[in-house]
């Protein structure tokens, strides 16, 4: 029988599910924005930037000749006035901008983040050559605020500039991270009274010959920005490398995503590089290489070193020179040489005998006995080292502190450590136990 309660549940549950679905669809709209705006300029028309998508001022152009991604970027040529765009007004956020400096060389330029009242923090590049520019940040905390040189960045490649601003207590702070080298120590923003940022200005000085692209909150997790990948799965999917390294800024260390390591192409060379030689000429030109066919076609192999056979450490003594003697002495000398010559083995035969005896090392039981001998000698060597004894108490791991072993005492007039005394005592016990076994073993033969 269907109860009233059951009917109520059948009606209420679908309504609840529909409501949750609507909330799920609208959820992104409830999230507060954490960056001013994002722009990759892909939907822009080539030409003047000002007037497109709320950009104003300046003399920047949307171009396609140099882009970070896609086919559109913004080029800053001759200075007229800064370009800017107003976005969301937020008091805590992050923004990333990509910068490309020409080798022409580039002329100095700035980026600053502002609110409706005043600018908050500045970055600039200046003193450019064909190879690089100097990168500066404006430090408002100094008694006399000034531009501080931070780094030298190369021309001809894209650089990432990440800035973040946030509130700590009553302070409104900011920091930046240039090319993933770590965040600068936090600085106070210019205007503490108004703790927000809502716009960006680019090019407040005599600018020229640089490009801007990909203004976004987060860096994409992809090759080229692998450090933006937060976990192992996304790092691997992007084709990056998950590595262990140290964050130099903070001193912390751990796993993180980094650009994949690319091995350079191997070049034909000597010894271990022989395998990369693909012709007989290049192979024979290498030291320690030979062009041979081991059943896989002609390839370049490292020369197998010829080990000289082991020789008997015996030299046949030279026979006595009897020429200087005469008479009986000479006769006795020659007899002695004759007998020696008959019974003296030659070095060549002894060498052959030595090699023959060495061949027994590779046959049973000698090879097995050698393996056992090597095993015991390795054990003996390894166990003679004193290693720590690990212990774990209530989840805490540590090693046993054996420092008391080194306390000394006088025994029989000699100074002995506690360790030696205890080891001697345990050795006696071990020998005693073995002796008991020996007696019982011998008794088996004399029941």
């Amino acid at each position, binding site marked *: 029988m269907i109860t009233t309660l059951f009917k109520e549940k059948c009606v209420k549950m679908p309504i609840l599910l529909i409501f949750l679905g609507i909330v799920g669809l609208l959820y992104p709209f409830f999230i507060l924005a954490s960056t001013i705006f994002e722009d990759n300029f892909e939907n822009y028309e080539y030409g003047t930037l000002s007037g497109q998508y709320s950009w104003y001022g300046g003399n920047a152009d949307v171009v396609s000749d140099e882009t970070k991604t896609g086919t559109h970027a913004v080029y800053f040529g001759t200075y007229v006035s800064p370009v800017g765009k107003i976005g969301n007004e937020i008091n805590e956020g992050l923004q990333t901008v990509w910068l490309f400096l020409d080798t022409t060389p580039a002329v100095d330029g700035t980026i600053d983040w502002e609110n409706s009242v005043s600018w908050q923090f500045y970055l600039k590049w200046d003193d450019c050559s064909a190879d690089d520019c100097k990168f500066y940040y404006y430090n408002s905390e100094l008694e006399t605020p000034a531009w501080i040189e931070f780094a030298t960045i190369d021309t001809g490649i894209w650089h990432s500039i990440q800035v973040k601003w946030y509130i700590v207590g009553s302070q409104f702070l900011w920091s930046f991270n240039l090319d993933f080298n770590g965040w600068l120590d936090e600085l106070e923003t210019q205007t503490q009274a108004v703790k927000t940022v809502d716009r960006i200005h680019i090019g407040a000085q005599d600018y020229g010959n640089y490009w801007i692209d990909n203004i976004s909150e987060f860096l994409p997790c992809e090759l080229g920005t692998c450090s933006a990948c937060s976990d192992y799965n996304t790092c691997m999917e992007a084709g990056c490398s998950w590595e262990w390294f140290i964050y130099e800024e903070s001193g912390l260390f751990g796993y993180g995503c980094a650009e994949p390591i690319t091995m350079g192409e191997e070049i034909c060379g000597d010894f271990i590089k022989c395998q990369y030689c693909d012709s007989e000429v290049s192979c024979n030109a290498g030291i320690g290489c030979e062009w041979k066919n081991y059943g896989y076609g002609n390839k370049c192999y490292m020369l197998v070193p010829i080990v000289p056979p082991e020789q008997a450490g015996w030299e046949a003594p030279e026979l006595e020179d009897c020429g200087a003697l005469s008479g009986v002495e000479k006769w006795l000398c020659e007899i002695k040489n004759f007998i020696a010559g*008959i019974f003296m083995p030659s070095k060549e035969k002894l060498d052959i005998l030595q090699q*023959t005896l060495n061949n027994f090392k590779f046959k*049973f039981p000698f090879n097995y006995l050698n393996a056992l001998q090597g095993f015991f000698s390795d054990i003996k060597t390894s*166990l003679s080292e004193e290693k720590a004894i690990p212990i774990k108490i209530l989840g805490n791991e540590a090693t046993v502190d054996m420092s008391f072993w080194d306390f000394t005492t006088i025994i029989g007039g000699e100074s002995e450590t506690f360790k030696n005394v205890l080891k001697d005592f*345990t050795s006696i016990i071990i020998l005693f136990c073995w002796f008991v076994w020996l007696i019982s073993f011998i008794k088996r033969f004399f029941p």
Partner: protein
Amino acid sequence: MSIADIVLSLVIWIFQKLILPILPTNLPLISYDTFATFLTGSVQHNLIYAFAGLNNLFNLELLFILLATMIFAEILFWLVRAGIFMAKLIRG
């Protein structure tokens, strides 16, 4: 060629033609490579890992030498008894 060389040639011939060819390199059940790898790999590592810390308390070198002699003697003893038993079994 001296007499010693002739004797040596004979000895070498016996070793090379009569003894070495019949000696096996590997045992039927456990090859030499398996035996050596097992010893130098897992057994050695496990022994060292398990007992190295006890070297502070015991003379492990002496202990293992004595243990090895005991094991070897026992194995030899039981092999001999097994051989005698098989001989009696065959003879009837």
